[in-house]
């Protein structure tokens, strides 16, 4: 994505307006005659793909559930009514009610915020850690590279779900610890991807040109290398988001994540498990939402990868 400092552009546009010889219409015409910025172009390519748009719509629906659950859910997530235990889906409770008489739909809606929060922050922190480590490894090479990458290899050689279980059982089960556990087992993937793409980018002449104008190492990494490696990072982030949501549900299912009565989807599955023979709606709906979340993120990520790849330009 082009990194444009908005104040700079505004200042420039102000100045442009001040120029007498540049009529307002002329500038606009000029802007249209040259091609559009990269991110506009990518957006256009993205919305041309029906699957990507479908994924995006489902995902946005889930995000709005997570942001404004009280507007969407008909009841609170802990509204227990013992007069309506185990009601099957009906007009009043479209996904039925559970063993304590709570509305399953409301609980599913409130549950979105846990999955989204864990997914988002886990991806964000692993992007940051992985990105910085990967770019340092690639930029300095030789020994630094070797030390960092072997360290990451060690983390990667531990099954990620086991690592996450170990971390949450040591730190205790809470939302923050869940995010930490998932990030730690995930960030080496980001580091590898960032390292690979920066290894290619750093050989290009504009990096040497940046050195020749006196830019420091940090400036070259953050201003010139990382922005150029953004496309693969974004794609990995979307795939990673799905994985993180899944990990969050799995850890909660085995009791190491969000604790009942909070309505995390995995937690709901875990409590509904006992009643699965008689009352299928207790597990089917939370399970379906886990699937929907991961599926929509993957569809969106696929579309994004294609949209950001300039070789697929038409």
């Amino acid at each position, binding site marked *: 994505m082009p990194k*444009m400092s908005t104040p*700079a552009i505004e*200042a420039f546009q102000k100045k442009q307006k001040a120029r007498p010889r540049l009529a307002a219409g002329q500038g606009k015409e000029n802007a249209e005659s040259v091609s559009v910025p990269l991110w506009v172009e990518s957006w256009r390519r993205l919305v041309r793909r029906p699957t990507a748009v479908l994924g995006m719509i489902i995902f946005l629906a889930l995000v709005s559930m997570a942001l404004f659950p009280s507007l969407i859910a008909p009841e609170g997530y802990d509204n227990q009514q013992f007069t309506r235990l185990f009601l099957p889906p009906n007009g009043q409770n479209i996904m039925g009610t559970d063993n304590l008489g709570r509305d399953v739909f409301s609980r599913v809606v409130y549950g979105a915020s846990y999955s989204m929060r864990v997914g988002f922050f886990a991806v964000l922190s692993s992007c940051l850690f992985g990105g910085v480590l990967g770019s340092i490894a690639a930029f300095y090479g030789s020994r630094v590279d070797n030390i960092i990458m072997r360290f990451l290899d060690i983390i990667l050689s531990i099954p990620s779900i086991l690592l996450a279980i170990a971390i949450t059982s040591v730190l205790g089960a809470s939302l923050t610890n869940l995010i930490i556990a998932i990030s730690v087992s995930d960030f080496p993937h980001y580091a590898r991807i960032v390292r690979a793409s920066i290894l290619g980018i750093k050989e290009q002449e*504009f990096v040497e*040109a940046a050195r020749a104008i*006196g830019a420091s190492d940090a400036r070259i990494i953050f201003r*010139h290398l990382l922005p150029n490696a953004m496309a693969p990072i974004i794609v990995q982030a979307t795939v990673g988001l799905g994985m993180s949501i899944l990990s969050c549900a799995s850890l909660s299912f085995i009791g190491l994540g969000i604790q009942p009565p909070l309505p995390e989807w995995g937690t709901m599955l875990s409590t509904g498990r006992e009643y699965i023979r008689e009352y299928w709606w207790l597990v089917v709906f939370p399970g379906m939402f886990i699937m929907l979340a991961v599926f929509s993120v993957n569809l969106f990520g696929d579309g994004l990868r294609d949209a950001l790849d300039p070789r697929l330009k038409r």
Partner: protein
Amino acid sequence: MTAKDSGGTKFLQVKNLIIHYETDNGVVEAVNNISFEMNRGETLSLVGETGAGKTTTALGILSLVPNPPGKVIGGEIILDGENLLKKNAPQMRKIRGNKISMIFQDPMTSLNPIETVGAQIAEVIRLHNKVSRAEAIQRACDMLEKVGIPAERYTDFPHQFSGGMKQRVVIAIALACSPELLICDEPTSALDVTIQAQVLDTMRQLKDEFQTSMLMITHDLGVVAETSDNVAVMYAGEIVEYGTLRQVFKDTRHPYTRALFDSLPDIGKDVERLAPIKGMTPDPSNLPACCSFYNRCSHRTERCAQIDPKAYDAGDGHLVKCLLAGGEVREP
């Protein structure tokens, strides 16, 4: 002005510079003991074949030789009385882009593809001057106009420019901080001939305007003739002939330089084939102990195979690294 006179301190002095690349397959002797000098506002051309060590010399001046494997073994690079090889990394960063700038060979790849050209010019201005963002933008716009690009294109990306325009942007970046020395690494090789002429013209104008000294690296003798005051011909990491443009072009002494001129097509003559220089440049990881041009030289004698000639003064500071010029052997 000859390479020798004008006394006093020179603006740039490179003395006995030696740069090696230490690879797994042995030591590549890229630059062997070269020396040259420049006055303020002068242009010196480094001419030579691919692999003669021209670019390594330029990177050496900027302390940008990739390390590892590259290593400056010895010598001095004195700019304005200060030895650049003794500077530490932060000091060098202040010099790069500010006192010394470099224009790279390929404008297609020497601009960051995802930043606007204006932002890239403003970047170097803000790196070396304490100016506000708005002022940097203002100055970047001025630089764009100076190299012949309308300032409205400040917010355009490199892929929206043609090759010649990109090279103009690169020139604008290089000159944005009014450097005292501009190193041009084959600035026109990637451009077609008409654009070459335009770009060279722009460079010459700006060089005069900013009073910049220029180190021009090229293998194009036409470009040399158009731009230079002095010429240094490099072969296998050594300067084999060094003098003013007139001395080197009109009073060519070294057999290699002569062969270079002979291999040029002549518009006045009708020839079937051009006269190439036979053979290859010696392997820089395995240079001969004798004259490095010995294998390809049409004037070689037995004596040439025995010693590595020093640089002889053929008159008025015209240095020629050949026994012929030293009078030790006669032309056959």
